[in-house]
């Protein structure tokens, strides 16, 4: 697994939403706001990149009577 794959979409999306909400609250200093803005833009870029780069990854769980969750090679 590369670092890129460790990127989690949902938490990043939630953080972006949080940043927008924080900026909307209008009580940050200009410096803080600019910091939030830059952070938000970076996250949005990462999200876009994740959507653009990702190819469908399919893992297939081995059937196992002991209910273990070993992963076979992807079927694709």
């Amino acid at each position, binding site marked *: 697994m590369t670092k890129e794959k460790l990127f*989690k*979409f*949902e938490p990043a*999306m*939630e953080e*972006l*939403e949080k*940043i*927008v909400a924080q*900026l*909307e609250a*209008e009580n940050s200093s*200009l410096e803080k*706001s*600019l910091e939030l*803005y830059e952070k*938000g*833009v970076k996250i*949005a870029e990462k*999200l*876009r990149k*994740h*959507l653009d780069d*990702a*190819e*469908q*990854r*399919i*893992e*297939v*769980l081995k*059937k*196992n009577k002991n*209910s*273990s*969750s070993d*992963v076979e090679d992807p*079927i694709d």
Partner: protein
Amino acid sequence: MINSQNSLSVSELTLKIKGLIEPEFSDLWVKGEISNFKHHTSGHMYFTLKDKSAELRCVMFRGMNRNIQFKPENGMDVSLQGKVTVYEMKGQYQLIVQTMEPAGIGTLYLAFEALKKQLQSEGLFDLSIKKPLPKYPGKIGIVTSQSGAAISDMLNVFQRRAPYMELMLRPAVVQGEEAARDIVNGLIELDRIKSIDIIIIGRGGGSIEDLWPFNDELLARAISRCKTPIISAVGHETDVTISDMVSDVRAPTPSAAAEIAAPSFSELNKIISKHLDQLYNLIDLQLKLQWQTLDRLSDRHEFQRPNTIIERHREVENKLGHRLSLSLKHIISIKKTNIEGLVKEINALNPIHVLERGYSIAFKREGQIVRKEDDLKVGESFVLKTGKGEMEAEKKQSLPV
């Protein structure tokens, strides 16, 4: 001989037949196999019920067939309850069906109804306990047959709509005796994997017997115990199973389940763009507000346009420069006049000029000017300086003041 006066009209005969048949068969059960099944766009169902040696025309009107819990198909054995009527226009009799039950699985069907009632009373179908689906799932688990139509339908949808989505398939037997247990195990396994945000269980269309594992009580209870939100997608739109009722979301088909689970690439891009716009607008607004504050403080709107500031500075500079050089000239000319005046004053104060007007200065031998009478002793000599020339003199005596 044909007695035309004794002949019945077709209508009269048909009416007599109708009168004989309809009271006799006003409420009955009949069983057989469905064929020529047609679900008309009007909502009514037309089909033939047959066995080895006979056929019966049947119609089930829209209002009645809404309540059927399964999808009638050709070849299906059913029990029908209804009444026989005569359709005069065509000279045909037919069964107007009021109830249809699957004959082949009658006991299963009763078990289904009983289980449904039981689970309902336990609150397992309550909307209040349904878990919401995460908006942006990172990974979707799927329990279905690895070779079935369901998985290939779902993969099609995922590849088209959401190629970014990570999937994990837990292959399972989806029909037959082993199926329910296998699906339950798969569900439990996937539910344990933390990274999985949604689990889809399901299979493609099939006969009511094929879909039966999804009416299993163990599966229903396993679904209700899952921590991960479950989407159930069994068969076609018309197939409703216990699994559908107890799951958090029921999808009419496996393809629909994939669509419900995964937000599309373009939707997500739109959301991201919207957030970016919001960020930009908010920071832009704040910057504008800051400028306004600055403007208010400095009362100079030129601050918004740095070019103007520079131009203004240059202008001022030029003006100042001009004024400065003017001033200098002026000052110099004033100074010049002053200096001339001063020179005159200085000249006027020059003692030589005073002497020229007839005065003299007395210097002691040591060079000091004699200012008072007693600066000199009687008999002391001194130098007297006039406007033109000097001479030596001597104090003879003091004179009274």
